[in-house]
């Protein structure tokens, strides 16, 4: 298809417009302002236009209807109601379904149900189709004669406005007018042979004629449409099918009954093609930096050319300063390029108001979602991966955290619950907190449930500090909901959230107070492409661990290693930490020790810690993460590889694997 080059652009624009519509619809639900309707209208109009250009008919048809509804709302001809907004949401969902179909190129699902629903809503009450008159034998002959003489046979269906007075009179006037206009004759009328009775005006509110016309259909149509008492006048070519003409409905006028809401398939919110939009200013900055590099390169070439003649010491000095400058420029360039990978987290947050709205409806609760710090920038890849765990947490808060309005009032809280999602930078991390003002988590319930499920023994439970008990919700197979609910799933929840966050090298923590709410705190690195890594030597190899997984580096003597219940441990700040040699963990030969002390790295991932002895700590530096070949299959113990300054490849170890295996 020759338009395929534009498809990505279309999808991207569609994403933008759909997002805008989503937000505006939510805003409309809160307060119906003309401005919001106008925004929605513009978005629908834009989509309609570009979908039509691309030949995506389902989409343009659907948006056409949506646009029409919005137009009527804007013109105050249609009242904003919850039902209407729900319908628009359904239309929006159908548009999203269509979008994912365009992306995947799969079989196009029929969205005519939604279209029909909208149409049905607009033409409420659903009007019966107008029956065409049945032709008598004489009329058929007349029609055949007219057709033979070169006239067109047309079916004319007219509906008068409801407030039109003296409909019967209008009917006769229209019949007369048709006869004058068409240059032929009215052959039959659906009301023919019925008594003219002023009291039965309703009978004349809609009627149909069969005419033989010398004039063109379009011209007649425009003439009739100009009549102030006519709501609609439809003309169509009429074909004689002897005696069965009565079955000849004009399909356009028959509005299909709304048949059930569109399939509630929620398309994945990921976009089609991974493209980036970059502010021109950022690109210009990058360009300037590249320019500076070129200048540096020229001065190096100059030095090379003049170097043979002048003094080596001076040259060396100059090379040093050029190198310094290049280093600075490269650093800036690196930061600049990294920034092009960054997106404001709003891109993710903006999906949630709709989610919370739907959840609140479904659960019969009143929940307000407050979003803060949406401008915080984060690597686009992290943003994409963060969607699922956050949705899970929000569902959990809405389902288990926020109480029913009655329970809240009884507890002296406002009936509406509040979920606050905040994001901010802290050092080299992005912190996201999700706070609800619900019932909090009861540690005793968690304890009882964990014991009942066999996650821990009663004795262990008694010894665990409060905070550790709460953290049990992150253990696989844990769910406190008395009942598995449709909203927050089947108890496979929090452990998956934790591992998803862990995969992003993030850390999740929880704080809760019974009766007043729960706060989840997620800490994430700014980017996944470049990390600060700790370089270590293990059996002659350089191994790297991400710095954010390093809790501490200590030196121990062999006597510090103790054995408890057959496991080696060390004591670090009064805490017992499992100990092992990184060599044996990776199945390498342990090298002969020279010094008396052993360098040990204490690795932290999510909420687990472990200590690993290495041969030597080299230091930390920024490393670019390169993915390993898919030929290798799953390598859960590695997060990738990097290329060191000397050109050697070094492995980057996965901290969460190390601490949990």
């Amino acid at each position, binding site marked *: 298809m020759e338009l395929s080059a534009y498809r990505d652009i279309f999808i991207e624009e569609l994403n933008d417009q759909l997002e805008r519509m989503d937000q505006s619809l939510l805003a409309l639900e809160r307060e119906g302002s003309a401005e919001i309707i106008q925004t929605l209208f513009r978005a629908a109009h834009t989509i309609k236009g570009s979908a039509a250009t691309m030949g995506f008919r389902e989409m343009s048809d659907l948006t056409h209807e949506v646009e029409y509804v919005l137009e009527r709302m804007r013109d105050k001809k249609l009242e904003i109601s919850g039902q209407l907004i729900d319908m628009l949401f359904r239309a929006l969902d159908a548009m999203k379904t269509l979008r994912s179909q365009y992306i995947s190129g799969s079989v196009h699902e029929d969205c005519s149900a939604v279209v029909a629903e909208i149409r049905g809503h607009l033409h409420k009450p659903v009007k019966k189709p107008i029956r065409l008159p049945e032709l008598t034998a004489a009329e058929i002959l007349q029609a055949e004669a007219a057709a033979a003489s070169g006239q067109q046979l047309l079916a004319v269906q007219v509906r008068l406005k409801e407030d039109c007075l003296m409909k019967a009179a209008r009917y006769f006037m229209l019949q007369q007018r048709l006869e004058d206009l068409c240059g032929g004759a009215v052959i039959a009328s659906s009301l023919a042979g019925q008594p003219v009775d002023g009291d039965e005006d309703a009978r004349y509110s809609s009627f149909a004629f069969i005419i033989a016309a010398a004039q063109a259909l379009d011209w007649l149509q425009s003439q009739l449409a100009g009549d102030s008492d006519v709501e609609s006048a439809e003309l169509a070519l009429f074909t004689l099918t002897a005696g069965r003409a009565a079955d000849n409905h004009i399909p356009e006028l028959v509005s299909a009954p709304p048949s059930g809401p569109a399939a509630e398939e929620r398309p994945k919110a990921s976009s089609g093609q991974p493209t980036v939009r970059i502010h021109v200013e950022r690109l210009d900055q990058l360009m300037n930096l590249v320019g500076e590099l070129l200048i540096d390169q020229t001065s190096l070439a100059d030095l090379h050319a003049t170097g043979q003649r002048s003094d080596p010491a001076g040259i060396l000095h100059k090379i040093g300063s050029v190198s310094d400058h290049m280093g600075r420029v490269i650093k800036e360039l690196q930061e600049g390029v990294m920034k092009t990978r960054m997106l404001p987290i709003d891109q993710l947050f903006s999906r949630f108001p709709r989610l919370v709205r739907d959840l609140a409806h479904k659960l019969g609760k009143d929940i307000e979602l407050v979003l803060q710090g949406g401008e915080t920038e984060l690597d686009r890849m992290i943003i994409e991966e963060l969607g699922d765990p956050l949705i899970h947490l929000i569902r959990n808060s809405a389902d288990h955290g926020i109480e029913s309005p009655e329970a809240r009032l009884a507890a002296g809280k406002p009936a509406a619950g509040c979920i606050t999602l905040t994001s901010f930078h802290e050092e080299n991390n992005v912190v996201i907190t999700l706070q609800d003002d619900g019932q909090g988590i009861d540690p005793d319930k968690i304890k009882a449930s964990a014991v009942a499920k066999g996650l821990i023994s009663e004795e262990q439970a008694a010894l665990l500090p409060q905070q550790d008990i709460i953290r049990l919700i992150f253990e696989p197979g844990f769910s406190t909901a008395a009942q598995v609910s449709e909203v927050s799933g089947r108890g496979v929840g929090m452990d998956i959230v934790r591992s998803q966050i862990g995969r992003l090298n993030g850390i999740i923590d929880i704080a809760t107070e019974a009766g007043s709410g729960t706060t989840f705190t997620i800490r994430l690195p700014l980017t996944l492409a470049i990390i600060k890594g700790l370089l270590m030597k293990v059996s002659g*190899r350089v191994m790297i661990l991400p710095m954010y997984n390093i809790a501490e580096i200590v030196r121990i003597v062999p006597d510090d290693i103790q054995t408890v219940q057959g496991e080696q441990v060390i004591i670090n700040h009064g805490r017992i930490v499992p100990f092992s040699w990184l060599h044996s963990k*990776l*199945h*390498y030969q342990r090298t002969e020790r020279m010094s008396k002390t052993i360098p040990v790295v204490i690795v932290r991932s999510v909420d687990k810690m472990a200590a690993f002895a290495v041969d030597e700590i080299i230091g930390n530096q920024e490393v670019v993460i*390169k*993915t*390993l*070949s*898919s*030929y*290798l*299959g799953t*390598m859960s*113990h*590695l997060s990738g*590889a*990097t*290329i060191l300054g000397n*050109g*050697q*490849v*070094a*492995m980057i170890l996965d901290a969460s694997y190390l601490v949990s295996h």
Partner: protein
Amino acid sequence: MASPQKDQYIELAVGAEICAIPIEEIHEIIKMLSITDIPFSRSEVKGVVNLRGKVVCVLSLRHMLGMPDEPYTRESRIIVVRYREEFVGLIVDKVIKVTSYGELHPVSASLGRLREGVFQGIGQQGEQLVGILKLEELLGG
């Protein structure tokens, strides 16, 4: 240049055996680079190399054809081939020449079970017979 309708192959030595790979499946041939081993990888995986900033996984063709590994020599080469959307390197003992074959024969069953599917055909040039590797099969997709 050989006649255009004849496909060209690179002949290479693996142990005592000579195999061929269709030239269009080869991205480049490089000398041995320093290899970083990967913990817990399959035994044919020798590790990864830095190919101009790309981390490329290298495999022992000897191992894949059921021969024991030998120390690399000055003649050892890495043949970089496409694998899905990326590249992998195959370590061979020696690259012999670019050639084409007068006759191509189907693989005979006598090659043994281990080799089944690994060869796409046998090339014949004069008296010599050379197995043409089927990379797709060798690399498992």
